[in-house]
């Protein structure tokens, strides 16, 4: 790997090893995703069908 890329990856791995996990979605994010990506669209589809 190019030295600068190697340094970047090492720094990211060090972050994870130091207990700062590079996490993805937390529970807050999942709540919003379920609300905005599932519940509201389903509700809209029902409302739209009977509109």
């Amino acid at each position: 790997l190019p030295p600068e890329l190697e340094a970047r990856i090492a720094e990211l791995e060090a972050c994870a090893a130091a207990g700062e996990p590079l996490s993805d979605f937390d529970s807050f994010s999942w709540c919003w995703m379920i609300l905005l990506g599932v519940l509201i669209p389903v509700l809209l589809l029902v409302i739209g069908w009977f509109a």
Partner: protein
Amino acid sequence: MSAPANLLADESAWPLLPAERTWGTARLSLTLVTTTAATWLYLIGESVGHYLGFIQGGVALTAGCMIGMLLVLLAAGPTCGRFGVDSVAASKPQFGSRGWIVPAVLQGISIIGWNSLLIIFFAKSAVQLCVALGILGPGPRSSALVPLLTLFACAVIFTALRRGASGVSLMSNILFAHVFVGLWMLYLLVSHRWPELMAARPALASPDRLWNYTTGVELGIGSTLSWWPYIGAMIRMAPDTRTVVLPVLLAMGAPVPLLSLIGLAGALVLKSSDPAEWLRTVGGTTYAIISLAFVTAANFGTTTAGIYASAIGLRNFGTLQRRSWTTLLLLTITPVALVGIFIPELFFAKFGNFLAFIGVAFAPLCGIQIIDYFVLRRRRVDIRAMYSAEPAAPYYFWRGINPAAMLALAAGCCTYILLLNPLTYQSRGLYAYLTASLPSVAAAALVYFFASRLVIRAGRGGYSNR
């Protein structure tokens, strides 16, 4: 990292470090809104207006956009958000250390194709604006300025993007007001033509009410799935995945249905999605000038973000990693400029069909990424492996290609085309109940899941580290 390295970080496809990821919720939202709002929204609205009335069309489109945006976020969001990489780099664990070229090509063609269209729209709107302002006279002489304006637009975008991601953000800050002009235009049309809007009947509606409704949803899902190529380059600038969720779902997802209502309303009442035309009808020349200024500005923001995302995508190619940022920008923007200068009318007439087919591939791509990340890898991605093309590297698979991903991509595309012809909108089977994009996502995910069982059994793909 040293200061110069920091300055160059957002011009590379390498992972960004936490200190380099400085876009907060507001900055990301603003950039995403400006990126989303462009002429294509009228075209989406017009397409929905062929099949559905204003209320039902607006609701179906909104629901579809929200579903599509969730799929894109679940596909590209976790890897891009965690490691600060772009959409193409995020596809390496699924497609392999060489196979990622397939998503990269899809990204390049989609972005360059769409941006060529938008730049031509920009140039045409600018000519119309000059004619409306009395700067130019009407007629073919003015139209001859389209290539010159295309070149001007490309030069401005090139200059802005010399600053990397901050150039995209700067453009967004300047152009953000146009979104409110768009909302004002929508208000005008709705408030002036409400009774007609409610009475209007869609011109191409099928006798099957469910089919019309599903097509509205499908247009929403399909439109937002096309954000896959853009999303990684933007959200990698945010500090973490939590920060990107609401901006993506609201700032990127909401403007699509909201501003598409302009095209929907125009298509229903005035049989034209061109806002300049119907604003002239509603409020005279002054309103038409404001509308043209809006269209001109809108396409500028989207194209800037698109060229940036495409240039970052190109950086993943080994031969381009060491090239200067200027070279990368020129490689990305030159095809757009050449199309706008030499073949604008031909491209306008023919390339839309090709783009429709390219768009079909983003649904299975999302299905593959979602099932791989959440189910097969159980959210464990090796950042080091993403940048290693050695035969011993985890994502090397076979000759750098994961056959499971290729098979799943083909299965997803076939599923889509079997259910819905993206050009003629002729449908088959259970389309009216399922849409075409959702079964395509599901088919690709299922094929990928079962084919990956064989890959895992063969000890390839880095799954053994789970």
